[in-house]
């Protein structure tokens, strides 16, 4: 049907009913009102305020002396911001890609009628329960050359083993990818597993009868039908990537130098510790712009898809 709501939109004809009837009509909107108010103030009001700040020369605390696009010009002349953006691109891509690949792969394996599936699932999922602060602390410890993996290998007799990514400005961003993937890939696995369970077994059986091999069935038939799961995962992961703050803070504090800086860290440090609130606001507006670039096409396809469905 073209229209999937239970109740059609209120038509132009006014209700001639009694008060209770009108109340019934208004109840749904009334029920949304608290959330609407919260979103209006807490999301859009504050966003607007930040937008305003980005056009001011605010330094230490907000001020309202307008300077036009100065802050944006400065932002893009700032080497650290460019590093942060590059890092986000590397981190975001690798993080999303690895999580999807690992999560999907493990989900398919788990879908093969595995014994003790519940236990294994829980093991994959539990890192999500940890806070990024804890994850960061532990991984910092494991990857630290003098305490962790490298020392362990040396102790075990593999003295030529070297793993110094954490202290190497060119490689440090990858250590953050490792920790982040460790934390989030189990969740992606859960999403994919949920998706796999929703697939009609008849389709797989049909493909089997047609003589397709199992890997081929997954590659050609099952995975393409998991598009919604795929999208949900990308959305969740993208938002983790863009918001990544605690993890970097706990693992590297953006170092060595500012080699592992990310936009969220940049924004935080300029707004709150550097006394350059205007610049910080400009950077957060840029972050929102990046988000929009990812989100708008998604929401568009999402909502349009549902209307058709």
């Amino acid at each position, binding site marked *: 049907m073209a229209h999937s709501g239970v109740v059609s939109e209120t038509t132009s004809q006014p209700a001639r009913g009694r008060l209770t009837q009108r109340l019934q009509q208004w109840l749904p909107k009334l029920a949304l009102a608290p959330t609407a108010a919260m979103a209006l103030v807490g999301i859009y009001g504050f966003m607007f305020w930040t937008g305003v700040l980005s056009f001011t020369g605010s330094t230490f*605390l907000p001020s309202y002396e307008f300077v036009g696009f100065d802050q944006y010009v*400065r932002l893009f002349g700032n080497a650290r911001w460019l590093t942060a953006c590059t890092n986000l691109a590397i981190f975001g891509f690798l993080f999303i890609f690895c999580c999807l690949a690992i999560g999907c792969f493990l989900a398919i394996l788990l879908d093969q009628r595995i014994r003790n599936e519940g236990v294994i699932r829980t093991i994959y999922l539990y890192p999500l329960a940890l806070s990024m602060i804890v994850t960061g602390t532990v991984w910092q410890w494991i990857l*630290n050359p*003098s305490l962790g993996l490298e020392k362990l290998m040396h102790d075990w007799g593999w003295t030529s083993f070297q793993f110094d990514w954490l202290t190497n400005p060119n490689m*440090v961003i990858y250590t953050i990818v490792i920790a982040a993937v460790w934390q989030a890939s189990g969740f992606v696995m859960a999403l994919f597993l949920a998706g796999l369970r929703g697939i009609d077994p008849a389709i797989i059986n049909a493909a089997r009868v047609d003589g397709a091999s199992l890997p081929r069935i997954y590659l050609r038939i099952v995975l393409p039908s998991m598009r919604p799961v795929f999208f949900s995962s990308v959305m969740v992961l993208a938002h983790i990537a863009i918001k990544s703050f605690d993890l970097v803070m706990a*693992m590297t504090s953006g170092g060595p130098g*500012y080699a592992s800086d990310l936009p969220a860290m940049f924004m935080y440090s300029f707004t709150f*510790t550097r006394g350059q609130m205007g610049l910080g606001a400009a950077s957060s507006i840029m972050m929102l712009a990046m988000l929009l670039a990812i989100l708008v096409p998604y929401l568009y396809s999402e909502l349009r898809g549902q209307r058709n469905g």
Partner: protein
Amino acid sequence: MKPIRHLLAAIGLSFVLSPAHAGQVEVLHWWTSGGEAKAMGVLKEMMEEQGHTWKDFAVAGGGGEAAMTVLKTRAVSGNPPAAAQIKGHDIQEWAKLGFLTNLDDVAKEEKWDQVLPPIVSDIMKYEGHYVAVPVNVHRVNWLWVNPDVFKKVGVEVPHTWDEFFEVADKIKAAGIIPLAHGGQAWQDATVFEAVALAELGPKDYTAAFVNHDMDVLSGPKMVEALTKFHKIRDYIDPNAVGRDWNVATKMVINGDAAMQIMGDWAKGEFTAADKVAGKDYECVPAPGTEGSFTFNIDSLAMFKLNNEANEKAQMDLARTILRPKFQTIFNKAKGSIPVRTDVDMASFDDCAKASMKAFKATAENGGLVPSMAHGMATTSAVQGQIFDVITNFFNTKDADPEATAKQLASAVQSAL
């Protein structure tokens, strides 16, 4: 229902019992490492002795980054703490925005103008009125030395950078880390500041980091300073990244490393490990900075409150901080020297005595300079830009000192 009634009764009772003048002081600080926390504990006890309640508001980590964020949000929400650990330029900024309260009455009563050196009291004043209380004076340009290591390797403690590199080579050859370091931006800057002070001298140091003279910032001396600074990379261990300063100090204490360039708060760590100055460890001025004193003054800024009892407590806090008794106990625990020049130094250790001597001497001869790395020299914006350039330079293997000097100048320019 019963427990609630009990609770209400208890609350009511506590109001009745507490002395009428007693208030609450909430103090926001990031003194959470061993010596510091102990020193803060002293203040807490002294306030409680006066019948006030101490509400500890510690925000650890990041050299106060998190604490500043918290302070700003608290101030914006109209609910600042009574006192907060704010220093240097930031005091002026907060005062300018009208957040800070006037301490002139207490100051007059306690004769602060007479007992504080002008260079200290100037920082505490906004438009001639006291708005903050100095707690201590740190000397930043110290080199901490483990004498056992030097004895074992058979070298002398260095007094210039050239000597430093010579000595460091030998120590390194002996399989010991020459310089304990923590790879955090402010620690990088602390070391850089020491090198820069040695190369530039106090006058040009001030020109560069306080007055932001572009010619000095990008000049040949700065290039030389950067070159030496970069060379230090070879004498630290690769695991320095992200290491906290006190962990680095511990390496010196344990003999894993020979030296550390760090402010005298490091002494708190030595003391906490039962080490004695002059015997188990030595403090010498950082190479080439013998006649200079890079100061870092911690202070508590007092915020405007709207509760009389709490205001009273706040004034008592200000008073207590500058009393000689607290100054002595606190600074001995923290490793710094008192801000009052009239405090009896007899019970202090050798390093503190030396520091006080240097403080007084350099105040006379112009060798007393504000620490750039600790927010004494310039605004946090400029400081941040310098940090970015310095730390990136230090962490890049084949960085070009000349280009970096130019970059430094333009980075400072952009934040002005």
